């Protein structure tokens, strides 16, 4: 079955420290993976997708098929990065179904 696992509910770091939000997936086939972010009092929004291989707000994520992981990384955390981060996998079936992990709350302290 398709599944996304985010093992950490909360990740707490100091400003300037490196950040790695973990995401592991289970999927038979070629996965399409996304990171969504929700800042306080804002709606859920796309941060980045693996197929674009882009860097948004200093965040990057590399798909590792061997380890079935799609960890989100940033070398130097900023206070404004504090938010809820969700890893998501596009489900099978040719329609727009996203399978989300439970999310990790990132808290960046000054």
């Amino acid at each position, binding site marked *: 079955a398709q599944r996304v696992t985010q093992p950490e509910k909360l990740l707490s770091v100091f400003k300037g420290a490196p950040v790695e939000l973990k995401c592991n997936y289970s999927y038979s086939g070629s996965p399409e993976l996304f990171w969504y972010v929700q800042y306080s009092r804002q709606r859920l929004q796309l941060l980045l997708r693996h197929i674009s291989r882009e860097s948004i707000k200093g965040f990057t994520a590399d798909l590792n098929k061997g380890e079935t992981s799609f960890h989100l990384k940033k070398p130097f955390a900023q206070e404004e990065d504090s938010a809820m981060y969700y890893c998501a996998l596009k489900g099978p*079936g040719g*329609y727009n179904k996203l399978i989300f992990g439970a999310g990790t709350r990132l808290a960046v302290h000054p």
Partner: protein
Amino acid sequence: DAGVTQSPTHLIKTRGQHVTLRCSPISGHKSVSWYQQVLGQGPQFIFQYYEKEERGRGNFPDRFSARQFPNYSSELNVNALLLGDSALYLCASSLVGSGGRGGGETQYFGPGTRLLVL
């Protein structure tokens, strides 16, 4: 453009009642998807509609139904409400909704409707 809009923002119902939630997609978007987010969990897919037809359905009971109108807005209906239906219901719109490869279509989420069932 205001983005995806949902109404109402909050709703309180009692067990056994029926509820209708509404969603207006971004102008030009023809696909609407619904998700349920229970506290402490990620969103869970309920339905996708495109051009007024159901394209996909998640693992939800028949008490949940939806429809899409000619203007691409959508309604989510839940009958015989249970306490466990208490959640944030999210609507997301996308241009086409094929979910095809070569890009993975971006879904734009609304602010959600928070439903409390007592």
